[in-house]
């Protein structure tokens, strides 16, 4: 009896050891194979993930790698998608060749030195199109609200309502700057920033360029517009030509004055500085996107004695412009410039709508600040300590 018991115990130990360590001749499959539709995409993609085989570790049977296979049905013909090396803590793969709406089954093959083992087919995984990004619902609501304000006040302006816009010193000085250049017989320099035409600040700058060009044409001064991008140059040429046409001075338009310099940031700055030192403009406009070169431009302009009007929505460059320029349009003033200079009711209406959007944001900032303060305090009521913020929780 004791001998049989000893043999049973020994046999049991061997079985346990074999199952724990991997019996000689078997390779355990990869763990935890999951297949899911790739979230928030346009379809045609499935995410596959799996854990390494328990044998994929030092001291175990050697795992050379993994293979991911795919088929249209669990028992269908499988096609290999990708190979992966052994030794990673986790594996994932995005199958971007899946057809939207089609079912797929996946399996992972563990490749060993002498053998391989497959997981059971996992699926079906179906790639679907997502038609809405739920985490951006708040952005959608905010965008619709802001757009509603803007469109409402544009409609009000079209209906003839008088709209007030506060005085912006930098824009009031545009005419003064152009007049000064005309009196001194020197050109006006307009720098539309260093971004391409797909940047909204550049577009805002080009809309102001049109107004400035009209004034320059009427005053019979010269206008120089050095551009850092070819598309900006093409657009600027069109804007200035139309402005001269509108002012009744098409003969005075000089296309060579709206020129492309270079795409390189500091090469462009060197070129503009060279134009300033040679042409000695009496009025400089720096409107659009600027980076490190802002102070170089502004200081060079100051050195030649030009009146300088700058405007950008880059918070990091505003201090330089405020320091070195005579007038600076800060942030939204740059975008309001077109409406301010033209005084067109529809454009003014959009400014008013944008201001009401600011009021709503102000309300939420204040409400958030008050709530954050309240949430800091604990109050003891009837022996129970509660956080004040809990009083506002709807149950």
């Amino acid at each position, binding site marked *: 009896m004791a001998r049989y018991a000893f043999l049973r115990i020994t046999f049991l130990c061997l079985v346990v050891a074999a199952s724990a360590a991997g019996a000689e001749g078997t390779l355990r499959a990869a763990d935890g194979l999951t297949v899911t539709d790739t979230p928030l995409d346009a379809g045609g993609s499935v995410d596959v993930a799996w854990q390494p085989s328990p044998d994929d570790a030092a001291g175990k049977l050697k795992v050379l790698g993994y293979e991911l296979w795919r088929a249209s049905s669990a028992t269908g013909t499988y096609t290999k998608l990708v190979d992966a090396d052994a030794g990673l803590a986790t594996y994932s793969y995005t199958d971007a060749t899946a057809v939207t709406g089609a079912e797929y089954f996946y399996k992972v093959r563990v490749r060993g030195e002498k053998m391989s083992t497959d997981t059971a087919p996992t699926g079906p995984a179906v790639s679907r199109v997502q038609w809405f990004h739920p985490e951006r619902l708040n952005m959608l609501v905010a965008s619709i609200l802001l757009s509603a304000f803007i469109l409402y006040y544009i409609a009000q302006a079209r209906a003839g309502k008088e709209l007030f816009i506060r005085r912006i010193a930098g824009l009031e000085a545009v005419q003064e700057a152009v007049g000064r250049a005309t009196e001194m017989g020197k050109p006006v320099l307009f720098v539309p920033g260093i971004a391409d035409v797909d940047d909204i600040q550049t577009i805002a700058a080009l809309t102001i360029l049109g107004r400035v060009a009209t004034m320059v044409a009427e005053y019979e001064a010269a206008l120089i517009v050095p551009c850092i991008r070819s598309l900006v140059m093409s657009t600027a040429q069109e804007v200035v030509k139309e402005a001269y046409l509108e002012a009744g001075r098409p003969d005075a338009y000089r296309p060579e004055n709206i020129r492309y310099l270079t795409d390189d940031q500091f090469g462009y700055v060197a070129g503009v500085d060279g134009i300033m030192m040679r042409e000695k403009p009496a009025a400089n406009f720096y409107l659009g996107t600027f980076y490190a070169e802002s102070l170089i431009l502004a*200081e060079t302009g100051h050195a030649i004695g030009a009146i300088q009007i700058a405007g950008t929505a880059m918070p990091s460059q505003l201090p330089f412009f405020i320091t070195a320029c005579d007038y600076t349009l800060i942030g939204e003033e740059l975008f309001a410039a077109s409406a301010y200079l033209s005084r067109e009711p529809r454009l003014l209406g959009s400014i008013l709508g944008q201001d009401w959007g600011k009021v709503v944001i102000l309300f939420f900032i204040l409400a958030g600040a008050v709530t954050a303060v309240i949430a800091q305090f604990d109050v003891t009521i009837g022996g129970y300590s509660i956080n004040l913020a809990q009083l506002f929780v709807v149950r």
Partner: protein
Amino acid sequence: MRRELPMIVAFVAGLILILQFFIPALRDVSESVQNWVIVVAAFAIAVGAFNLLRVNYMKIRFRRADWPFSVVLIAGFVVMVVVGLSGLDFVREGGSAVPAAVGAPTAATAAAGAPTAGTAVAVAAAPRGALTVKLGQGIEVGTVFDWLFTYLMFPMSGTMFALLAFFVASAAYRAFRARTVEATLLLVSAFIVMLGQVPLGSFWVPAWWPFFLTPDWLKDKIMEIGNTAGQRAILIGASLGVVSTSLRILLGIERSYLGEE
């Protein structure tokens, strides 16, 4: 139609790009639109290059003021284009890669009358290969294009960037004169922040000094509260301005960028 077509294109493209932010299904369409922009911009480079050459050629031809600079520009333009497109490179082929070296004296050098052991002796350099010109090497590291870019272009850009140091000093000198209340505030806060940024600012603080009067603490509060609040306010205003301007352009209310009122 000359005015309506660009407005229609702007509206449709803008609408797609806005909607794809909320509708993932439109992401592929949006990426195609953005790729088209890249292609158009690539062709526009040729327009810009032609404009650059034409303007400077006219300056040279009519001997306008400072026309020699235009010669330098066009020469540089041509050199970079030729070197870049041809993939010019100068390589040494054949010979040994080991340059001349200084080694220990050997029997041979001693027999030739060289100084005795313990003294370093110049070893005759292995012959270098002949210098050959190769084309089609692209613009990889080591080619002539890369050399010109690295040893001419970069230093010149660095030089322009370095000018900032002098311009910051001159702008600060003008801005920090305490003539008005705002200028005084600017001067005081700039002084505190500069003092807080350097180790010397905290070096002189005695142990009994209140922590809320140390340059470090004051600097942190100015930057974290005042500066951050100001920047965020500007960003909020600018962002609203961006939305408003974009809406005006999409709806065709703002048409100045097309060259009309």
